[in-house]
């Protein structure tokens, strides 16, 4: 395939309707999406920066007076387009539960402790290599009410813009070898095994800081700016 084309693998994205994920029952559209043919659409308009990045925004362990509890980790990786080019100067936002599996959110009533020294939200901008880096705390697993005894594997939510709204992505980063993967409808909604595995970060010794924090690598691929969004799917 030539540069600028797209390679869409069946099952590499979750379906809009996935019954095991109960929250979608009244929320996922039931009619087919309308395909737009042609290149007239300003859905591909460039995205402009809109957020000033603060000094501690990429270090979630330094946003309060004290240090948060839990296992300190470094999460870093590269953001690339489908042609393997770095996506530079793009906003990366993340949010997550604390080490006990509790979110700083008014409607999270999981009876696990909040940590006054951890909010769990961060943002940064990718560098010229498409690289980003966060310092945070390894989040805990937590229960949810999708089905009896349902637990989410530990994960960090990511939000990225890329070059345009076509490349907009909200995803979740998981941790290696989590025993909850097999039982999690969110993870299982991605039917392609290799696509599922690309949501799992890898332990990376080169990212660790001795005497300080372990490191996990999580690379992200966004739809490319020159990709042809309307070509026949393979």
């Amino acid at each position, binding site marked *: 395939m030539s540069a600028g084309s797209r390679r869409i693998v069946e099952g590499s994205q979750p379906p809009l309707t996935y019954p095991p994920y109960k929250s979608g029952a009244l929320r996922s559209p039931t009619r087919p999406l309308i395909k737009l043919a042609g290149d007239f659409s300003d859905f591909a308009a460039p995205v402009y920066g809109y957020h000033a990045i603060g000094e501690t925004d990429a270090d979630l362990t330094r946003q309060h007076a004290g240090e948060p509890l839990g296992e300190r980790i470094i999460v870093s990786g590269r953001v690339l387009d489908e042609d393997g080019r770095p996506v530079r100067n793009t906003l990366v936002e993340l949010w997550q539960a604390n080490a006990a599996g509790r*979110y700083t959110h008014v409607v999270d009533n999981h009876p696990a402790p909040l940590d006054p020294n951890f909010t769990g939200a961060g943002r940064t901008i990718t560098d010229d290599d498409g690289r980003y880096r966060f310092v945070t705390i390894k989040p805990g697993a937590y229960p949810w009410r999708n089905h009896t005894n349902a637990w989410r594997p530990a994960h960090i939510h990511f939000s990225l813009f890329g070059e345009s709204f076509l490349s907009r992505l909200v995803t979740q980063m998981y941790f290696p070898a989590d025993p909850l993967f097999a039982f999690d409808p969110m993870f299982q909604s991605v039917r392609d095994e290799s696509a599922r595995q690309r949501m799992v970060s890898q332990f990376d010794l080169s990212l660790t800081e001795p005497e300080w924090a372990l490191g996990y690598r999580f690379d992200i691929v966004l739809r490319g700016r020159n990709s042809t969004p309307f070509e026949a799917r393979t």
Partner: protein
Amino acid sequence: MSAENTLTHMSEEVPLIATASQTVGPFFSFGLTTNTALGRLGGPNTRGERIRLEIRLIDGAGAPVPDAMVEIWHADEAGVFLFGRLETDPAGLCAFETIYPGQATTGAREAAHVNLCIFMRGLLRHLYTRVYFSGDPALESDAVLAAVPPDRRGTLIARRDEAVPSTWTFEIHLQGDRETVYFDL
């Protein structure tokens, strides 16, 4: 082998395959929607007619969606794109203060419109849709609307509030007889 240039789990073959989407979940607001200034688009010098765009999200049971995130972007009169982002309130509402959209400089002529990206618990992928404006004579010749079956075009058209003419209201139905049109881009 340098770890610097090695992608996690990825073959060296391009094109690479885009990372899978996952739901924004129920607990995004402390991470994504703390900046309420993103409900106002454009600056004091942005030219155009000031409008308020009220968007209400409704699920398949007719209940408001109180935990969605709505992102909007549209051109101003100079063809510069403006961006906004809000979460819905308990009534399923979010309201953007912006200007009546201008014509995008890129591509073919289209009716005035606002592009939308919708995220919520229950959606494994975000949805793309558009807001058009009732009474716009260009609706008849808009290329994107032309791709929509005529009986569903009305789901994409905002109404002017009769009491407050600068306010436009738009309902997004996720399911049902009035299910909004969403686009596959």
